[in-house]
């Protein structure tokens, strides 16, 4: 503890307060007498269920596709690797609304992919739960990729090299050596992607629209309610904050150990 330079304490405290004080403000503002009825309304429960469902689907997609991408980024010697990596990181810096617009123009009924889908098969992707999952995957993927690639690089290739010299095939090495070694990173990356999906707003409302039970996730409901029922919005916000804190606690404590 004594190794922290003293002059860092003040800015560190201010940084922490900047995040913590608004949360306290939210908790203070909650209408406790009606809290239970507000968060168990039909609209609230359907949004919560949709958020959890799409969040889990997003996490699975991130694992299935982002996992392999992280391995490629960390282990392969592809020529344009820095470029590929910066594209993966793009959703981290882009406003989610931009992500939603790009998805809408690509997969919408007049887009280069969405157009043929609609004309030939009558499939409309916007306004569907699929669209919610796609929008969430777009913004959440980098969280898993970055976290997993970091773990892969920190672990190094020594064990894999040893396994290879002992005659293990690349697949066996991946299954028996690489994945067990980076498991903590894999778990925290997945949970972070899940948490990001849970909070996703801009890309979802732009690409998927907002309809109860189909595309109206918790953040969309909160924003909608903030227009006319601020107590409901505050109560739902608190639910989201609690879920987020639980998720972060679970992953970060794993990380530190």
């Amino acid at each position, binding site marked *: 503890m004594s190794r922290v*330079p003293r*002059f860092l304490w003040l*800015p560190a405290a201010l940084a922490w307060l900047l995040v913590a004080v608004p949360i306290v403000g939210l908790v203070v503002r909650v209408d406790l007498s009606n809290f239970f009825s507000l968060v168990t309304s039909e609209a609230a429960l359907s949004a919560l269920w949709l958020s959890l469902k799409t969040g889990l689907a997003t996490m699975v997609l991130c694992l299935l596709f982002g996992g392999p991408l992280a391995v490629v980024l960390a282990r392969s010697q592809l020529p344009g690797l820095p470029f590929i990596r910066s594209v993966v990181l793009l959703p981290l810096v882009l406003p989610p609304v931009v992500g939603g617009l790009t998805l*809408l*123009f690509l997969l*919408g*009924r*007049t887009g280069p992919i969405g157009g043929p889908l609609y004309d030939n098969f009558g499939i*409309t992707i*916007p*306004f569907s739960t699929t669209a919610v999952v796609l929008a969430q995957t777009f913004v959440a993927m980098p969280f898993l990729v970055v976290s997993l690639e970091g773990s892969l*690089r*920190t672990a*190094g290739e020594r064990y894999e090299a040893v396994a290879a010299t002992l005659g293990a095939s690349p697949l066996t090495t991946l299954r028996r050596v690489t994945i067990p070694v980076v498991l903590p990173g894999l778990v925290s990356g997945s949970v972070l992607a899940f948490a990001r999906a849970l909070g996703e707003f801009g890309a979802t*409302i*732009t690409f*998927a*629209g*907002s*309809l*109860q039970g189909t*595309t*109206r996730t918790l953040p969309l409901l909160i*924003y*909608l*309610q903030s*227009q*006319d*029922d601020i107590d409901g919005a505050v109560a739902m916000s608190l639910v989201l904050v609690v879920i987020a804190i639980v998720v972060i606690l679970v992953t970060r404590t794993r990380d530190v150990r």
Partner: protein
Amino acid sequence: MSIQRSPRTARRSAVLFAALAALLGLALAACGGSGSGSAPSTSAQAAPKTLTVSAAASLTNVYQSLGQQFQAANPGVTVKFNFGGSDQLAQQVVQGAPVDVLATASSKTMQTAVAAGKIQGEPIVYATNQPQIAVAPNNPKQIAQFADLNKPGVSTVVCAPAVPCGAAATAAEQATQVTLHPVSEEQDVRSVLTKVETGNADAGVVYVTDVKSANGKVAGVSFPQATAQGVIQSYPIGVVNGSQNAQLAQSWVSLVTGPQGKAALQQAGFTTK
């Protein structure tokens, strides 16, 4: 990858501290800069005055062009607009925001300010707006009336009932006795228009003025019940009590309700009184 660090930590932290201090200074300077930069340099003879007008977002284009006419007619006066949702604007006035004129998009929202004693006299209703169905140009799905929004194969987008354009859609549903099954309830009228413009929805319930502002990217289909009581939307305007520029505020109201205002409003699709 990990590289052992050489023991230069003390010097490094000094550099770090200096950099942090410089960053903080820069951030503060940037904030201060934007504050002082927004003050307009008026070179007119008269003492520079600023008229602050809070107006519903749907009035943005009309008011901005009227604002230029007003500034040309009143040298030394700057008109500053605060566009937003009528609910928020009325709330701000009730909370004592330093605003000279309040122009909302519904009588109900204006009434909140009137009830709080914040409006001088009676607000004037000078224009109306009504819902219209926005469809793709040439109306490929052949939507002719409100009930056609429920035709099979037609995907309709509306505003959520909680926001004003959604309330208008709900009122239209009641007036036509048609219950819509929208594919999405959007947050604002602009998003509804975008969904129709991009071809992702076949129809959307918006206002006449929105169809007009889309400049041919969508076509409008009128329905007779749009002018029914409770569906049609009135635009009231009032001078805020305690305004520092009450006289200027009054002449703004005269401009909006006068011939110049009417011309601009009609051009945007509003019906004027």
